[in-house]
């Protein structure tokens, strides 16, 4: 029997993903590209919010979308239909995106220099939470049809997302959804976060959302200048 030894390691368990994410972050700092990582349940309206967002911003900014999905090119097609470049990342069953996968697909997509890159993660409130993709910030979406107890049920994502976007707010009159309760839960998990209420159907909140993106892009450019 050999000798037993103990060494202290003290490294993050996702160190390798972190290294890839750090390289992406460095590259995007160089190009002054604002990068968002959008995380939510399936069907909460990530692609619909992006459609409304790119329609408003595409004439003034160079935009692109990376669409993470288990299967189908459907989401990327929806963005391309608006004249904005999109690339589908098919994970083939994996429940989240990793930085290396983003890097690889970014090379394949060859978007050129961008002002804003949207990364739509696989629809899932749990697994994508732990994976840094090199983004400037995470955005958590919560549609009003999902129920008003979700932030406390999924504290991982709602505590990490710098911005929480409530979607489908036009349906609020028809649902027993306590918006204040959701705002308070998010405030507990993430006191410094931003909370927005939107509807892609009525247009509610989209000005504030797009203004936030413009502000963050300008701040990143100013910091890098």
């Amino acid at each position, binding site marked *: *029997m*050999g*000798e*037993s*030894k*103990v*060494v*202290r*390691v*003290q*490294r*993050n*368990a*996702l*160190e*390798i*993903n972190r290294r890839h994410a750090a390289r992406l972050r460095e590259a995007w700092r160089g190009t002054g590209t604002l990068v968002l990582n959008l995380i939510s349940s399936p069907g909460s309206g990530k692609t619909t919010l992006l459609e409304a967002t790119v329609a408003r911003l595409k004439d003034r900014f160079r935009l692109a979308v990376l669409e993470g999905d288990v299967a189908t090119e459907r989401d990327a097609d929806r963005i391309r239909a608006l004249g904005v470049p999109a690339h589908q990342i098919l994970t083939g069953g*994996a*429940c*989240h995106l*990793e930085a290396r996968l983003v890097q690889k697909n970014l090379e394949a997509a060859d978007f050129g220099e961008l002002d804003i890159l949207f990364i739509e993660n696989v629809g899932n409130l*749990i*697994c994508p*939470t*732990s*994976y840094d993709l090199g983004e400037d910030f995470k955005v958590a979406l919560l549609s009003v049809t999902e129920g008003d107890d979700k932030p*406390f049920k999924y*504290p*991982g*994502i709602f*505590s*990490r997302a710098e911005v929480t976007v409530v979607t489908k707010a036009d349906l609020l009159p028809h649902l027993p959804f306590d918006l204040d309760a959701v705002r*308070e*839960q998010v*405030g*507990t*998990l*993430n*006191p410094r976060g931003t909370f927005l209420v939107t509807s892609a159907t009525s247009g509610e909140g989209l000005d504030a959302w797009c203004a936030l993106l413009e502000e963050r892009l300008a701040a990143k450019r100013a910091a890098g200048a």
Partner: protein
Amino acid sequence: MHELGIALEIHRTCREAMAPHPGARIERVTVAVGELTAVEPDLLESAWEAAVAGSPDEGSEIRILWRPARQYCAGCRADKPRAEGSWLRLCPDCGMPLAVEGGEELDVLELAFIEPDGEDTDG
């Protein structure tokens, strides 16, 4: 189910740490897992078993140290007790809004490994 990917990365991290010890095999790895990392300890244990299966580290142990998040009251300047898996919005003592802190750990802390027999005694 992303625990398998995390287990594979922990294994790779261990292997990097053992690079100066050729032929060594893992006996036990100790990791800290925070409550807000979306990593389930039981699933991580199963994933570890799968990650090391068929490697020299098969049969090794993963020891998980659970790190709960805390609820801090800025009014009382103190952490407030809470039930596992539940959150309080307001401080039960002073009524101020509570904040959630900590629980972000996902770290490989310590690695125990077995070196192969030193001098081969040709026994």
